[in-house]
């Protein structure tokens, strides 16, 4: 019956110690954060990118879409255009700063969409078992055996590219890996004593699965989602590069690389910097994800 004291309280009003537990947990997490260079570096990198995305209009020295016709292909290193200009004389630094917005927006929202869909489906499969579980498991197998990026390309190609399509398609095609993890976790949590206790106290199936089982699967799902954000940012940049992502005049790193590819022999900086920006962002997210995995769920292999 140990679980009764350590896990979520059963039924009724708020227990007096809940707040104390939460701050203790936060304090422990903070201690672990300070002792882990990977976690610290990763979160600083991620916070930097998020801040840049939020503050892009304030930080950018120029309008990212403004053409400076007499300043085309300016190499990096001038005071007015620190990272140079592109084929239309647009400021590369400003475009880079604005590009962070799409990457962050698409990466985070797609992971949220896919994570919520996958978590609910996996929870249902693991909780109810039987025919539903068999059906969902086959669907998971199916989705995991279709090459992710090819499926995304095909669906985006058919629906036509837009920001919303991109988020929904990148999110929803990624549901299967969340569902697999949520299903597995649910099946093991379902057998634990505090769940039986909740049943004995008369909790309904939906209430028990949402109040008692879902919170216990969250650690694995959060880790998975973090690493999924990294994969999604890479996928989004690939789609934009192919012209199937967010359309101009919106600035994206993938599109900047596509522009730069055409001038690679004469203006190397056009393709170089957006690639480094993607790498910086993804690396930060991966560091954060690896650290979260070590802290929250060491046994998870993703």
């Amino acid at each position, binding site marked *: 019956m140990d679980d009764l004291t350590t896990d979520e309280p059963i039924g009724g009003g708020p227990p007096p110690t809940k707040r104390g537990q939460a701050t203790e947990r936060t304090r422990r997490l903070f201690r672990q954060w300070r002792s882990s260079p990977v976690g610290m570096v990763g979160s600083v990198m991620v916070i930097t990118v998020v801040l840049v995305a939020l503050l892009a209009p304030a930080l950018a020295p120029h309008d990212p879409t403004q053409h400076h016709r007499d300043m085309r292909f300016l190499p990096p290193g001038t005071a007015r255009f620190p990272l140079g200009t592109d084929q239309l004389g647009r400021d590369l630094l400003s475009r880079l700063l604005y590009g962070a917005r799409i990457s962050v927006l698409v990466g985070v929202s797609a992971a949220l969409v896919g994570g919520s869909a996958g978590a609910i489906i996996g929870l249902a499969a693991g909780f109810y078992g039987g025919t539903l579980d068999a059906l969902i498991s086959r669907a998971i*197998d*199916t989705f995991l055996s279709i090459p*992710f990026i*090819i499926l995304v390309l095909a669906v985006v190609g058919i629906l036509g590219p837009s920001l919303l399509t991109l988020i929904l398609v990148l999110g929803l095609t990624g549901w299967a890996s969340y569902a697999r993890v949520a299903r597995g976790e649910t099946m093991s949590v379902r057998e634990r004593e505090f769940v039986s206790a909740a049943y004995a106290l008369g909790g309904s199936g939906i209430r028990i699965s949402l109040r008692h089982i879902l919170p216990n699967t969250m650690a694995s799902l959060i880790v998975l989602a973090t690493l999924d954000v990294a994969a999604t940012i890479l996928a989004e940049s690939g789609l934009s590069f192919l012209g199937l992502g967010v359309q101009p005049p919106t600035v994206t790193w993938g599109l900047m690389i596509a522009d730069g590819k055409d001038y690679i*022999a004469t203006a190397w900086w056009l393709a170089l910097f957006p690639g480094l920006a993607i790498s910086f962002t993804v690396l930060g997210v991966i560091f954060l994800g690896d650290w979260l995995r070590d802290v929250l769920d060491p046994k998870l292999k993703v």
Partner: protein
Amino acid sequence: MTIYIFRRLLQVIPVLFGVTLIVFLMIRLKGDPVQQLVPDWYSEAQVAEVRAAYGFDRPIYVQYFEFISRAVRGDFGLSFHNRVPAWELVREALPWTARLALTAFAIAVVVALPLGILSALNRNTPLDLVVTGLSVWGRSLPNFWLGIMFILLFAVALRWFPVSGTGTFSGLPLWKHLFLPALTLSMGLVTTLTRLIRSSMLEVMREEHVTTAYAKGLRHFTVIGRHVLRNALIPVVTVLGLQLAWLLGGAVIIEQVFAWPGMGRLMLQAIYARDNSVVQAALLVSSLVIVFSNLIVDLLYSVLDPRIRYS
């Protein structure tokens, strides 16, 4: 063993059903596929005529079974764009992607195997730190960008390799054209494999049978070769199989960067031209390649590691 193989084969059936269903439904995502085929100025009667000609007027399950029975015979319909059977285009493109993927595969194994082993044997030395650091950094690089950087370095600056294509116009031997795209494609696999081989080696080196092997006086080299490497490579085989899906996916963008006439480029051009029968054929064929290579890997795994058969 027979039972295991039988059970594993049985699992393929629902997956095949699911994959074909997804490919079938995909072109219907945006509603009526006929409306997308015909020009706006077609009259009701003309639209109905097109609908009947393509069989879109029949119940959806009849259409699905028709789709399957024709797909089994390699009939995906004509390419809407250039009036050739879609299957013909896929069959022409498939060997090009196979060449690219297999070369990338070979490069990855040749590079990652020694790197992973060396960095496990020299754990926490500068060599290990450099290898591990590079393999982590490699995870964060978009492969199409890496391809462009390789073009910049090896084709534009050093002029060792051609920028793109297959040699039809340049007159250079095929391997010169193959090398840069294959190298680009292999990079993701190199980083994954190196990390995996390293951690798998370290795990096996901690096991008791290795201590025993040292205790009975075997030389370091023999222990590593016979007792560590053999066991450490079992999980690597699985991941190699699973990474094939990743290689095919990566090939789509890489082929576009290097103008390589494979499946990925075929599919992209079909997507740009809204050529649905070619998109369907390409997606179905690449999914089937993955389903069956996963099957082969699983069976191979059960041969390599007898424990798996009983779980």
